[in-house]
């Protein structure tokens, strides 16, 4: 579904395809060509004019940056002109040693100034921020990137550490405390220390790489453009009654066209004179300055150029220095280019290989941390930490921190693997640094954990667990009591008189008694001795039993003899208990049956039973038959 949009006013800005075609390399090439055009290496009027416009624009932008910085520091901290100049000097010095151009440095200083920081603080922070930005974004970091990252760091200076922690910085508590509660100087120093721990001199070192050299070349070209632009601005303002930007641009265009024509004309003239000069004898040879009319104009122009306020000598010197720098860099670059046509490829490959090697080393360390065994050990340690948490929470916190560090390591490993897969050298280096930082943290935590465990083990070993264990103590007491009881028993048995048969009432003659053995003593005796004792006891018992039988038989005979003597047998037969089967006087009972009428026998039995019932000697009078 289409929207309804009415464009009231619009501007044609050119086809997007053209813009997309402008790569950064082409831009750099264009800048170099512009610089070459500016120093007279031969371009048409259009190029000269375009470069002039660009130069003016660059000069205006640079001036705007500096004015912004000056206004900010004057308003926020009441800076003096000398202090502003000190910041400008620092920007120039930092550009000279690194790859960041002066405009970006000034912008960084301006951003810091918006946080109401003192001049000294800005000067302290700026180099560290340049190192940080160039390390993270490369030599060609844009102005917006400088602005954004400077804002993040300035926030960190105010206690918001997100910008630092996002990129992997680990701040210890002391640093955090310093940044949160220290003075401005202390906070800045702490932040610089944190940044320097990873990025120190990155900007400076980057300038020595091929990429950095190219960036310095571009910076030099931009500087030259600015200086030319400033000169053009001043010169063009003096050309006529320019009362608007449009008129100024028109004047500038006319001036450029005329200048180009004059240059061409002078070139042709010099060419002709030199051709003529070659044909002249030596004594007639002269230089251009000696031609009356042309020479006068030439000298006037040269003198005017030197003395004119619009072409400041300092600018010229700076421009000359830049041209020299440009030549040196160009020469170095060209030599490097010639050398590196083949070698650059090798160098790149070598650098990439180095980065990958370092990454693999870090990965190996990381893999060790994250293999399955380690995870299982970590799980066991976590359980241990939970147990320890009953006595101290610090151990559990430490363990959780340890696990978190492991996860960070895993994350860094994945990032590094991605970077290696993409063969992005900068990303590999950054990811390797991050992984190493995570591993450092993990190692530090692991060390603390080990130390804690060691302390715990030592403390455990000092605890007198066995001596104060109640169950062990009870067992010991029970054993002692048992020993005392046995000792008392043994003592009693030892002291007690041996029982006699008379005392026991067994009928065994005194002195002919074997005392019984207690179960406790029997339990300690051997089986053979117990069996031997049992056999002896049985034999003795049998002997006494025989003796008792003989005594009983004799007593019965004596009784019968006595009863016979008195003539009263008490209803017993005189032969009782004397027959066979009844000991000494056995009695035989004989029942005679089977003779006579069975019916008669049955009646006789019935009668006997009935009589018995009637006498009360039988419990029932009923007969089953």
């Amino acid at each position, binding site marked *: 579904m289409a929207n309804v949009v009415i464009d*009231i006013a619009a501007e044609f800005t050119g086809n997007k395809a053209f813009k997309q075609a402008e790569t950064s390399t082409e831009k750099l090439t264009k800048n170099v060509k512009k610089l070459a055009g500016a120093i007279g290496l031969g371009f048409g009027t259009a190029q000269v004019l375009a470069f002039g416009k660009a130069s003016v624009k660059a000069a205006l932008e640079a001036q705007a940056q500096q004015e912004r910085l000056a206004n900010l520091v004057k308003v926020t901290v009441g800076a003096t002109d000398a202090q502003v100049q000190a910041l400008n000097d620092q920007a120039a010095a930092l550009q000279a040693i690194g790859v960041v151009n002066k405009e970006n440095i000034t912008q960084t200083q301006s951003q810091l100034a918006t946080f109401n920081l003192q001049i000294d603080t800005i000067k302290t922070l700026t180099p560290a921020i340049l190192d940080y930005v160039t390390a993270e974004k490369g030599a060609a970091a844009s102005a917006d990137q400088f602005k954004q990252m400077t804002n993040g760091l300035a926030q960190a200076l105010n206690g918001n550490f997100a910008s630092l922690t996002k990129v992997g910085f680990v701040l210890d508590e002391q640093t955090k405390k310093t940044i949160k509660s220290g003075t401005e100087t202390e906070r800045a120093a702490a932040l610089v220390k944190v940044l320097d721990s990873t990025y120190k001199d990155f900007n400076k070192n980057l300038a020595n790489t091929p990429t950095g050299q190219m960036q310095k070349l571009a910076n030099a070209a931009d500087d030259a453009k600015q200086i030319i632009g400033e000169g053009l601005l001043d010169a063009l303002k003096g050309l006529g009654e320019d009362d608007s930007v449009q008129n100024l641009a028109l004047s500038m265009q006319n001036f450029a066209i005329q200048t180009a024509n004059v240059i061409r004309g002078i070139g042709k003239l010099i060419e002709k004179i030199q051709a003529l000069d070659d044909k002249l004898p030596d004594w007639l040879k002269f230089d251009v300055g000696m031609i009356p009319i042309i020479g006068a104009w030439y000298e006037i122009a040269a003198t005017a150029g030197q003395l004119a306020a619009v072409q400041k000598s300092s600018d010229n010197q700076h421009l000359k220095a830049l041209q020299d720098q440009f030549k040196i860099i160009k020469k170095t670059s060209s030599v490097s280019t010639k050398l590196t046509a083949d070698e650059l490829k090798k160098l790149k490959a070598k650098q990439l290989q180095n980065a990958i090697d370092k990454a693999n080393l870090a990965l190996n360390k990381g893999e060790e941390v994250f293999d399955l065994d380690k995870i299982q050990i970590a799980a066991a340690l976590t359980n241990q930490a939970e147990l320890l948490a009953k006595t101290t929470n610090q151990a559990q916190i430490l363990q959780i921190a340890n696990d978190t560090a492991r996860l960070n390591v895993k994350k860094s490993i994945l990032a590094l693997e991605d970077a290696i897969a993409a063969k992005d050298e900068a990303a590999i280096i950054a990811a390797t640094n991050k992984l190493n930082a995570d591993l450092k943290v993990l190692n530090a935590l692991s060390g603390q954990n080990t130390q804690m465990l060691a302390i715990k083990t030592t403390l455990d070993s000092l605890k007198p667990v066995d001596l104060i264990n109640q169950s062990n103590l009870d067992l010991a007491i029970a054993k002692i009591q048992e020993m005392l009881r046995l000792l008392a028993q043994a003592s009693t048995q030892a002291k007690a008189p041996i029982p006699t048969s008379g005392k026991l009432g067994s009928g065994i003659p005194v002195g002919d008694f074997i005392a019984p053995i207690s179960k406790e003593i029997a339990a300690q005796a051997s089986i053979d001795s117990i069996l031997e004792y049992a056999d002896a006891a049985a034999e003795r018992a049998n002997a006494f039993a025989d003796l008792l039988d003989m005594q009983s038989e004799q007593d019965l005979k004596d009784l019968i003899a006595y009863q016979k003597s008195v003539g009263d047998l008490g209803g017993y037969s005189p032969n009782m208990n004397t027959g066979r089967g009844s000991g000494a006087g056995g009695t035989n009972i004989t029942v005679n049956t089977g003779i006579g009428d069975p019916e008669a026998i049955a009646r006789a039995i019935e009668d006997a039973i009935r009589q018995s019932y009637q006498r009360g000697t039988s419990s029932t009078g009923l007969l089953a038959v």
Partner: protein
Amino acid sequence: MKQRRTTMPASVKGGVELRKALRKFTPDLAKETQKEIKTALVPITKSAKGYVPDRGKILSGWLPRQMSEATFPFFNPSVVKSGIGYKTTPSKANSRGFRSLASVFNKTAAGSIYEKMGRKTPDSRFVVNQDNKYRSPLKGKREMEGRVLYRAYEENNGKARDAVIKAIQTSANKLNQRASVRG
């Protein structure tokens, strides 16, 4: 969502650069220009919102209802009105390389349908039924013919466009005037 640009607007050369310069060197002038452009565009959007019919003038089946799986956009007058507005900041360049400096829009789907319904198929049942319930005239020329925003723009008779151009020109003149002041 695909946007259909209308016929060629007034072309301003250097407008984007001017806006940048204004913001960079004369922020007060940039704000003033924005304000003037806004003043020029508001009458169009205000009258366009007035041309959006209320619920009673819309076919009942086109109004939003509790439960429906239909994909055809419902006509909710308040939503349609909220989708009518203006923009005073430069847009991204389109495929032909033009960047809009100031624009008015009617961006909801239902609003767009109501805007243009019947231009190509005036005898369709939907258009006839809606016209029977409430007839709103189509105004404008060719692609810029419509019932709401195009109608308001047409009735504005180019006043907004002239005012926008004038605001830009005025700010350019003021910038030049300030730039030419010599210290």
